[in-house]
């Protein structure tokens, strides 16, 4: 594995649904990347990872590389991009609920 590029966020999958979730500044797990706590230091990120991850809520937590574009957060790697949106063959996953939100 190549060295991790900063900045990073903490991501995992929700225990109940398996959905990709992100650790937010507000101290909750959320399905949105936007609002994630962004770490500029690997040590801090790893320390937080140990602290905030509870086996009872999420599984498979790790650090994911992001880019800050203006005040928007985007995933650096395409794998994380798919986790963030959903699959490309159907409008399922997060993109589905986004579309519903827009439609409302």
């Amino acid at each position, binding site marked *: 594995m190549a060295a991790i590029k900063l900045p990073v966020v903490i991501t995992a999958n929700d225990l109940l649904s*398996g959905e990709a979730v992100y650790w937010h500044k507000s101290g909750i797990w959320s399905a949105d990347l936007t609002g994630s706590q962004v770490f500029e230091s690997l040590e801090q990120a790893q320390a937080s990872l140990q602290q905030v991850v509870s086996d009872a809520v999420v599984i498979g937590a790790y650090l994911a590389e992001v880019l800050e574009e203006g005040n928007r957060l985007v995933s650096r790697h*395409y*794998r994380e991009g*798919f986790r963030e949106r959903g*699959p490309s*063959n159907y409008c399922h996953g997060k993109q589905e609920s986004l579309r519903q939100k827009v439609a409302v």
Partner: protein
Amino acid sequence: MYAYTEFDRAFVRDRVLQYRDQVKRRLNGSLTEDEFKPLRLMNGVYLQLHAYMLRVAIPYGSLTPRQMRRLADIADKWDKGYGHFTTRQNIQFNWPRLIDTPDILEALADVDMHAIQTSGNTIRNVTTDQFAGAALDEVADPRPYAELIRQWSTDHPEFQFLPRKFKIAITGGSDDRAVIRAHDIGLQLIDLKGRVGFRVFVGGGLGRTPIIGQELHEALPAEDLLPYLEAVLSVYNLAGRRDNKYKARIKITVGEMGIDVFREKVEAAFERLRPAFTGQDLSVLGEIQADFEPPRFLEKSQDVYFSALDSDTHFRAWVERNANPHKHPSYASVTISLKGHGNTPGDASAAQMRVMADLAERFGHEELRVSHEQNIVLPHVAQADLPEIYRQLGKQGLATANIGLVSDIIACPGMDYCALATARSIPIAQDIALRYERRESEIGDLKIKISGCINACGHHHVGHIGILGLDKAGVENYQVTVGGSAGNDAAIGQKMGRGFSFEELMPALDRLIDTYLAVRIDQSEAFVSTVERLGTIPFQEALYVIDKTA
């Protein structure tokens, strides 16, 4: 069809109860994920990128209409209205919630289905020829043997912790339709002077180290099957490399030991184990075989069929591509394509599953099969009923006449779903199918297979054209192989050179296919034969022509 005994039912029910309790304990915090993960995997529950995934076993790919309808109900109730049929002749649901998985398993148990041994280092679902019991070239129906192996291997105490997973495939006749030489053990039914026997291959496999299986036994009498398999497994269980996951498959064991030494060890083990098999296995086999009696074929007037062939060119094209000759002269085996142009290979909606179930009930002697090429087969239909079947399929977008053509692609889920993927495979399959839709009949037989990582779930190594999706410095990159084959002439495709980006891939395939069209003798020379005649160099040159001129 094999009918579950009370023992089977109780066993499966018991597993559901155990699993329900395990999920409960996981959710109330008494089990950690580390403790729970192996338990959920043993019941077919994986974690993918966006959700959990449930992999349901379809033993040797056989389904009844009732089971197919139940899969449709599960898709509607607990998933997103569809299921994904895989090359392992299984079905996967991509969106179940953990808390629903016990209910899903219970719904499956109601129709004698389960998800046991769809993962882990065990003997997996035995795959077989999708035309079993129907094909013209068949020596004997492979399914009773597959079922016998299933019964012997399920919860076999010695083989629950093998060095690595173990896959067995059986084909019923001279034509290998089950890619047996890409499996840990491949079995081909043969005629031993009027008695049934097996040609046994060992050590095939794809993945990181693709190897074509070698012949271990040229003529094993059928009554020795289980003791012989047990001998192979026990040699592997001891000698298999447990120190390194990438060297743990039997193909590496056989490779390191050499086939001759391996065979000697198997024969020694066989001598030792043979006496323990006192014939109970054969009486079980006899009972199983009774469940697989062929249906009572019906004689129907062929008039409608012949007149439809004459008058409807679309129907005729579909029959030519999707109907396979049957043992019974006025019957056919129909392959229902799950490869509509632009669709996800292997996906079927709940509505489509119900139509297929209805057709099997009305016209197909209650049988459906899942082929390793990710299509659904009605093994026994009277030719007289083909026009009506075609019409009904058409209403559900299931009448695509493309079996064996460019768009009949095997593709793994790739990075759209799979947590292990290095690139996507589904969109590549969709793009190829749409791109060649108009030209594919002219191109003729050409099998493209796509995997989204080196694990090779999409069988890319044995595609006539294989495509492997990789991650090259954070960008999707596709490596092309040419000259693979999955049939009797099984071969691993050759890597052509550097990979292509997503955008470069389609133009590169155009050059490859145009070259084939230009150099083939005529339309009767299929792509594989042209590659065999000319080698891969002309194709390599076509792929990299831009490099040369740059």
